């Protein structure tokens, strides 16, 4: 049934990694596989969320013999505080990334480094926020919109204005449950304050603040990041690219962009595409310059420019171990500190660019709106000059790569759905064709696959196996972040992978000309998913909680993922986790994040570390939602 399409298996990926590990041994550097061994077993108290080191009286650990910390904090309090602090850490991280994006819009100008690319999106947002646009210079509008956007981070009173986009039902629930998010910074500060020694001890209040803090991210900071990036660099639309380590080129200058904020990578792509730089690369004997991405920076530039994707979080060391990377340039988040010493073992130059992510053994070139192009030019030039310095004995590029169709923003998805409408009957620019596929039963539902890699489970295995099972069962997938990259490595973003689907999804893929897994972007772009489910619920005329749509983070690891999980649940989407949320030491916390939130907001966590069982739970969950709708 494969009909010419062969998915790259996890075994094949592991074989590639094993081959690269030989190089690591040869050059004498540790990689994550070594460090996982060294760190195993992990501290059981930390793992269960019942180690408190919030004050200097501790650390306190909860055991049957010592059920309370020195202050009297119970397992519920400690696990609850740790959980909220993770959510706050994630919300702060996403939101601050978003803030940088708003600043770039604030700094944009016709003759500067950053420009308005999607003027329609800017004008729509201006209209949404009541900013006058008639007879105004687009940059005047941009600056006023940016100022309002920046103000959302620290507004004195009121709620996140982005939440105006939610369904009436959600807004009502958020107000009733008192989790409507206020200023982004305030929610993070509130969380830190609540979890300080001697403040909130009630686990329920901690979980409620986790939801609110998460909402300030998903319906605040992250949404700002996505929207501003679209305005500045263009809203992603469907396009073709490739993924996995095979995208590195032996005879070209390879520059890897790694991190999350597209401000740096956009400039690198722009500069590297210039004839001057391509000629410069050729002057060193290279065929040209090959920009590839890692992690969410890869997602950002793949979605907008079709730049190829080298891989996800746990692939970052592998990429350098190929020995053909002239430069790796990073912005923020998910960057292994080990990239520093690792790059020292090769000719690879390692550039850090943000004061947020300062890393030893790197060249620090702080990027600002004013110097962005100059910094990018320096990096690209030095990379070209570095090309002849490769050590032939350290080179191995795994061959595996797949075609990947990317760029499925909400606008991108609608553009594909428009192609299956009938002008005699249907309106354009809606999710109705998708809804029709779901109500008729052709598609059973949709799953948002998100989240990281985590060596606590076999990396990528859970992502890929769960996705394969879902598409086989006519469940369409939207994916972001490392989940989308896992799909890319396995070929599930290739339109040809429709042969792995059940016949319903396969037909939908054919008619709409889409792959079965729709790449929606980086992890901040989970905000797109919130707008997607909101749009679907509005077009369908039902509540978000009724949709046969769920979220799944089978390999999550970062604090950002905790924040995401909170806003996804608060938006009314059941979320299936393949990694324990580090609160299992508290029965009350486990109940609150599963049953408790379901009572308050209509959705909660479903946790199972066995991917086979998790996907079964997902399919059952979707069918239960269908049954409730009578479809």
């Amino acid at each position, binding site marked *: 049934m494969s009909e010419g399409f062969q998915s790259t298996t996890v075994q094949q990926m592991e074989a590639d990694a094993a081959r690269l590990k030989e190089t690591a041994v040869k050059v004498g550097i540790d990689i994550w596989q070594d460090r996982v061994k060294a760190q195993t077993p992990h501290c059981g108290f930390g793992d269960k969320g019942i180690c408190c080191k919030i004050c200097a009286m501790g650390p306190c650990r909860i055991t049957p013999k010592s059920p309370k910390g020195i202050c009297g904090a119970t397992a519920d309090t400690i696990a609850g505080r740790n959980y909220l602090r993770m959510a706050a850490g994630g919300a702060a991280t996403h939101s601050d990334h978003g803030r940088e994006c708003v600043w770039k819009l604030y700094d944009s100008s016709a003759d500067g480094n950053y420009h308005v690319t999607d003027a329609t999106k800017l004008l729509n947002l201006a209209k949404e926020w009541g900013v006058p646009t008639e007879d105004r210079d687009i940059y005047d509008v941009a600056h006023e919109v940016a100022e309002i956007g920046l103000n959302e981070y620290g507004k004195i009173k009121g709620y996140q204005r982005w939440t105006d986009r939610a369904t009436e039902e959600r807004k009502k629930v958020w107000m009733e449950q008192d989790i409507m998010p206020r200023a982004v910074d305030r929610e993070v500060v509130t969380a830190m304050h609540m979890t300080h020694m001697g403040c909130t001890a009630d686990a329920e209040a901690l979980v409620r603040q986790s939801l609110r803090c998460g909402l300030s991210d998903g319906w605040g900071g992250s949404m700002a990041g996505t929207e501003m990036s679209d305005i500045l660099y263009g809203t992603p639309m469907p396009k073709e690219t490739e993924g996995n380590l095979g995208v590195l080129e032996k005879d070209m200058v390879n520059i890897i962009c790694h991190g999350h904020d597209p401000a740096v990578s956009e400039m690198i792509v722009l500069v590297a595409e210039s004839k001057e730089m391509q000629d410069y690369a050729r002057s060193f004997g290279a065929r040209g310059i090959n920009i590839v991405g890692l992690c969410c920076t890869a997602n950002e530039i793949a979605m907008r420019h079709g730049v190829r994707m080298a891989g996800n979080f746990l692939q970052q060391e592998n990429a350098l171990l190929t020995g053909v990377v002239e430069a790796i340039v990073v912005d923020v988040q998910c960057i292994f500190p080990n990239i520093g010493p690792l790059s020292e073992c090769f000719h690879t130059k390692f550039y850090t660019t943000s004061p947020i992510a300062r890393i030893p053994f790197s060249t620090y070139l702080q990027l600002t709106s004013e110097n962005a192009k100059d910094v990018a030019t320096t990096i690209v030039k030095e990379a070209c000059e570095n090309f002849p310095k490769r050590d032939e004995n350290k080179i191995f590029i795994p061959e595996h790569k797949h075609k990947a169709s990317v760029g499925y923003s909400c606008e991108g998805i609608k553009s594909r759905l428009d192609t299956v409408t*009938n002008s005699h009957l249907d309106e354009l620019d809606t999710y109705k064709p998708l809804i029709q596929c779901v109500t008729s039963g052709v598609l059973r539902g949709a799953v948002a696959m998100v989240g990281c890699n985590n060596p606590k489970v076999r990396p990528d295995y859970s992502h890929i196996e769960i996705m394969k099972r879902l598409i086989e069962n006519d469940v369409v997938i939207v994916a972001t972040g490392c989940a989308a990259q896992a799909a890319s490595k396995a070929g599930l973003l290739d339109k040809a992978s429709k042969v792995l689907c059940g*016949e319903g999804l396969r*037909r939908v893929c054919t008619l709409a000309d889409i792959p079965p897994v729709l790449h929606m972007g980086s992890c901040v772009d989970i905000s797109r998913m919130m707008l997607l489910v909101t749009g679907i619920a509005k077009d369908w005329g039902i509540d978000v909680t009724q949709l046969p749509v769920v979220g799944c983070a089978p390999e999550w690891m970062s604090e950002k993922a905790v924040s995401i999980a909170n806003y996804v649940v608060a938006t009314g989407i059941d979320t299936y986790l393949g990694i324990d949320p580090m609160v299992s030491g508290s029965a009350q916390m486990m109940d609150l994040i599963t049953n408790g939130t379901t009572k308050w907001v209509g959705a909660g966590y479903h946790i199972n570390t066995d991917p086979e069982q998790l996907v079964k739970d997902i399919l059952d969950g979707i069918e239960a939602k269908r049954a409730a709708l009578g479809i």
Partner: protein
Amino acid sequence: MRRLFDRVFKGSDEMYEKAVRDLDEAIAKYGADHIMQFPDTAYNCACVLQYTGKKVNTLADLKAALDGPIKEMMSREQKTHAVFTSGLATAMSAEIIEACKYVEDPAPYKGEYHGHMSDAEVRELGVPLVTQDIPGFTVLIGPAPSDEEARDTIKGYQSRGIFVFLVGGIIDQAKRMGISMGFKVRIVEVGPDIWSVSHVISLVMRAAMIFGNIQPGDYWGMNTYTLERIFAFVNAYAPVDDLTVACGGGAIALGFPVITDDKEDLYQVPKSLVIQPDTKDFIETSLEARDVRIKVTQMDIPVAFNSAFEGEIIRKKDVQAEMYGARVDCFELVQMKDVREIEDHKITVVGPDFDELEPGVMSQIAMVAEVGGKKMLADFEPVFERKFHSWINCMEGVMHTGQRDQIRIRISKAAYKNGLRAKHFGEMLYAKIKGDYDTVVDRCQVTIYTDPAECTRLRKELATPVYDARDARLASLTDEAADVFYTCTLCQSFSPSHVCIVTPERLGLCGAVSWLDAKATNHLNPNGPCQVVSKENCVDENIGIWPDVNRAVKEYSQGHLESVTLYSIIQDPMTSCGCFECICGLEPASNGVVIVNREYAGSTPIGMTFAELASMTGGGEQTPGFMGHGVQFIGSKKFMRAEGGIQRIVWMPAALKEKVASRVNKAAQELYGIENFTDMICDETVADSADDLDKMIDFLAEKGHPALAMEPML
């Protein structure tokens, strides 16, 4: 609201149960070993054959299919796959219900309905599908809300070239509205009950097996082929019952959307199940749902213009005006002129218009189109001129036969009443020449002569010398004299791995593409289906092996073929797409070959009908000893030259023999010094079955046929 999938399942069960009942009755009456064979097909019970992968010969075979694979396809899981397979199981059950009728009577519908369609009819569709003369198929399941609406919808589809199949009450509506029906006019009254729709599915199955080389049992191959290459759709008028919904499941499985006005318990599914409450908008809604694009040529004529009217016959009693070149001087001519001498779109009528012609009296007509352009070549004149035949036929109410000065034209009273006059012939010819050949024709003017004296004078002074010069040119056009050959991959939209090599002495096997046509096509569209193949470094001129021919077939068959020879049917014979006019097959006893044309329905001395012989090849597959080809090729000196040429022909249907006699006899005379060679060729009057093989050998011996003394071919 009932779930859509449940409705398919219920309808599928109903059809299955009826099939079981009908088959059990037939078995009780005739016995399980009774032969079951639909007429004129080598793909008996094509739906069952395709989806079970097993041949059907007897009622027991059908019983085994119902009990085994068909039942297995009727899973009741809430999944699209189960719905699709149940839909296809419904089509198979329907086919078995129909099969039981044909067991009872080989012509169960007595001419009232068309019922089963023959393989020859399927093969007739090849060329018009490829050329997009038939841009799609529709199955109308009715009745429509009113007789008038039924008529308007049917005629609306017909005027757009869509092939129309009618099932159920809409057939009575069409009859009441006096619509002429039949395979030739592309409106087929399939049958009165929903299960008769299986005949349409059978036609689709066979088209995919014949043109696409889809193998029985290849579920995904079939469903992908039909989805991607057969532009069919269904219009089901309300109320739609579960049986019809289940059949719809099968249609959608094949990629054919269902458009209905029934809103009860039906869910809209994009491009698959489309609910259009306004039945008057069915046509446009459906065409969009199936991505059928109708090529429209704007022309100022008062009657419809469409290939669907090509098969239209105008009877004597309906004739307003008639011109017949065999009796009076008539002709049609395309002539290249210096572009400066041509006034574009100038239409001139010389002589009386149709109003002044006396009905019933033979009239005269001459149509002269003068064309010019920087890229125009004199070689294209006959290419355009040959198209007059089909173009004139495409006008509703006009019939055309013949070519050059042997044309016959009939204009119906209805077309005349609609305002059709002489100048409209000019308008139509102008529009088609400019529309179809715009890259080489910059200017075109048309003169229609109806003045008898002018027709006579111009035939003698203008037309005859041109025809004579062209004949001389054609006679000199041999494979040896040509500088290049051409590929033709026009058929690849249906037969993805077939490539024709077109040479002056070997036209395309469909009979529709000559070397000059290919040359013109190449000039019109240098990146199109006809590509130049160089003749350099010939390896074997007798067998016809050229390195670039092999290179071309490999490239354009996407590696499916390695090599073909041009003049052998044993060594790497040229492949067929399936729409060939004739099939030639080895007859070992006589050391010869038999040739059967598509129109011949009977059997042959090798015990196979055209349909059965044709099923041996096609779909781009090489089958040594079998070859599809055009009628014209039979008279070619290059016809299986490697094996000794036309003297190997031992049997042809009488009608075909008559058609090719003059060319074959001329070639045989020149090649072997044999006079009246066709008299030596056996036909069905002597031998028409495998039992008659000895009669044929005796006939050949008596006539002294040269094949008997030749080396065996294998």
